[in-house]
């Protein structure tokens, strides 16, 4: 058995390793070593905890680790990269549920946790920590389950709104906090369970009004919550390692939410209020666009433009992943590179269904990461680009975000593809994007539309180019 000081120092080492795991993600080269640091950190944390004198139940603990670990390992090996958003959402739910179980367990056996005073009742500070840890964990759990359902398609992605929604949430919030305060004054099961039940219900109610395409923000936010829940457990146990790890994850998720909101030019409050991305605006915008002229072409025309270009920038959107066209697109890129065309990818921050999703999908298709560029990096280059190929993206290329102050997306940062000499757009129809807006880019003189499924279009391009 290690002394209390040795345990604390070992936890410190684990904390440092966890910080290094995040630091490694500054570049792809250092990231794999960082991930190893993280694994070693968690391993040290678990081993040191297992040798504590209060931990005796080895058979059951190892069984739980083995079963959980096996499920986790198999999932990690099998999950398709397109399913990463819902996988991450599901994992947030697990952290939330684990935090709830630990909090309930701590309340049922406060002496075992060392959070009881001489008479066996809870310290006041511990009551407050348990209250916070439980409700954050419970909201994270149910909210993440709803986010999982929306991302996986088992629930409809369209927002569920009803009259008085926000008022009901507010009232529930007040009841939950009242129950929490009662628990802090006089800890007993009734207020604890009322608080727990309402927190779970609130998790559901807070997420249902939020549309499927706003999920990148929500997944990031729940990422943050799962961190705060872990920190809450850390406060209950008086364990600095849990507090450090929880705070790191909490701030990470908060920063990602901020980045996503900024990329959509919306405030977090506006996203949380929900109701955005319903069907109504799409229908309303339908009338005006019929009579505007546009140019369309076939794969041969597109291939001709691409082959004769000096530089090509490809703008992929989520439609690319839906059509499973990444691998076919990569073949197109290979052929063009072989023919001496300079090819780059331009990624908008909200190109996928979670932060950085499109980068992973391209990496999976063996696209080297050094030709994949972020929005701020590539925007100054469009003016010198011969051909831009937009594939499965829409709103993020709409020039009215820059030029038309009356547009709902005015002010949203976009990829400035309309500055290039020629624009090719592969799209199934002229239908509107998520924001329900017509895209002026499609009607420009320099734009040629190729009406096809992304994968079929790439396959025809390969045939013509070869």
């Amino acid at each position, binding site marked *: 058995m290690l002394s209390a*000081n040795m345990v604390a120092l070992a936890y410190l080492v684990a904390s440092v390793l966890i910080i290094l*795991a995040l*630091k490694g993600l500054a570049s*792809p080269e250092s990231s794999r070593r960082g*991930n190893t640091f*993280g694994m070693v950190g968690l391993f040290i*944390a*678990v081993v040191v*905890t*297992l040798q*504590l004198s209060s931990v*005796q*139940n080895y058979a059951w*603990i190892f069984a739980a*680790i083995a*079963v*959980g*670990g096996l*499920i*986790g390992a198999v*999932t*990690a090996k099998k*999950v398709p990269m397109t399913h990463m958003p819902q*996988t*991450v959402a599901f*994992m*947030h739910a697990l952290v939330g549920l*684990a*935090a709830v*179980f*630990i909090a*309930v*367990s*701590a309340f049922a056996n406060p002496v*075992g*946790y060392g959070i009881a005073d001489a008479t066996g009742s809870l310290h006041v*500070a511990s009551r407050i920590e348990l209250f916070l840890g439980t409700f954050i964990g419970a909201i994270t759990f149910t909210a993440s389950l709803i986010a999982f359902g929306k991302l996986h398609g088992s629930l409809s992605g369209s927002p569920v709104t009803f009259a008085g929604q926000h008022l009901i949430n507010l009232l529930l919030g007040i009841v939950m906090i009242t129950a929490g305060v009662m628990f802090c004054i006089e800890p007993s099961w009734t207020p604890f369970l009322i608080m727990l039940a309402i927190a779970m219900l609130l998790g559901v109610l807070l997420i249902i009004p939020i549309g499927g395409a706003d999920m990148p923000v929500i997944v*990031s936010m729940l*990422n943050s919550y799962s*961190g705060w829940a872990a920190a809450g*457990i850390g406060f*209950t*146990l008086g364990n600095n390692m849990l*507090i*450090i790890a929880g*705070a*790191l994850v909490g701030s*990470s*998720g908060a920063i*990602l939410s901020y*980045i996503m909101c900024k990329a959509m030019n919306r405030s977090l409050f506006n996203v949380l209020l929900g109701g955005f991305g319903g069907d109504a605006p799409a229908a309303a915008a339908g009338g005006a666009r019929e009579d505007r002229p546009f140019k369309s072409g076939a794969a041969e025309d597109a291939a001709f433009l691409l082959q004769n270009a000096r530089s090509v920038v490809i703008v992929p959107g989520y439609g690319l992943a839906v059509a499973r066209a990444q691998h076919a697109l990569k073949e197109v890129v290979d052929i063009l590179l072989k023919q001496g065309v300079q090819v780059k990818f331009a990624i908008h921050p909200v190109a996928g269904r*979670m*932060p*950085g999703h499109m*980068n*992973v999908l391209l990496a999976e298709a*063996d696209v*080297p990461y*050094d030709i994949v560029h*972020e929005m701020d990096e590539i925007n100054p280059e469009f003016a010198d680009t011969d051909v831009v190929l937009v594939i499965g993206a829409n709103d993020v290329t709409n020039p009215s975000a820059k030029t038309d102050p009356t547009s709902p997306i005015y002010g949203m940062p976009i990829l400035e593809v309309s500055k290039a000499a020629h624009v090719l757009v592969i799209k199934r129809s002229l239908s509107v994007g998520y924001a329900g807006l017509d895209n002026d880019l499609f009607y420009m003189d320099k734009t040629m539309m190729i009406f096809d499924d992304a994968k079929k279009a790439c396959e025809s391009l390969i045939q013509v180019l070869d």
Partner: protein
Amino acid sequence: MSDTLMSDAVGHAAQASQVADPFVMSFSVFILAIFIGYHVVWNVTPALHTPLMSVTNAISSIVIVGAIIAGGPLEMNLATVLGLIAVGLASVNIFGGFMVTQRMLAMFKKRS
């Protein structure tokens, strides 16, 4: 430093009422860790934001420490059983989170 020495020192300081409440110490650590998180995470390249989320999933499953303590006693009651379930849930995330992160990071290659 041995534990007895340490507790002696703490005892003396407490007599002089100069020791902060443990909660205040934890809170200080918490705030400082948020600052570290802020600076480290802004340095993460946007291309790796998805691996960042999956690895933070594994990291927040550090709550397994609390779960092991909860499931630690030999006597099986509500508290122990809930603790053991939490150990299982956190293990799913630790193994799943790190392994899927590793799988993603292995895909990021430079042009050959």
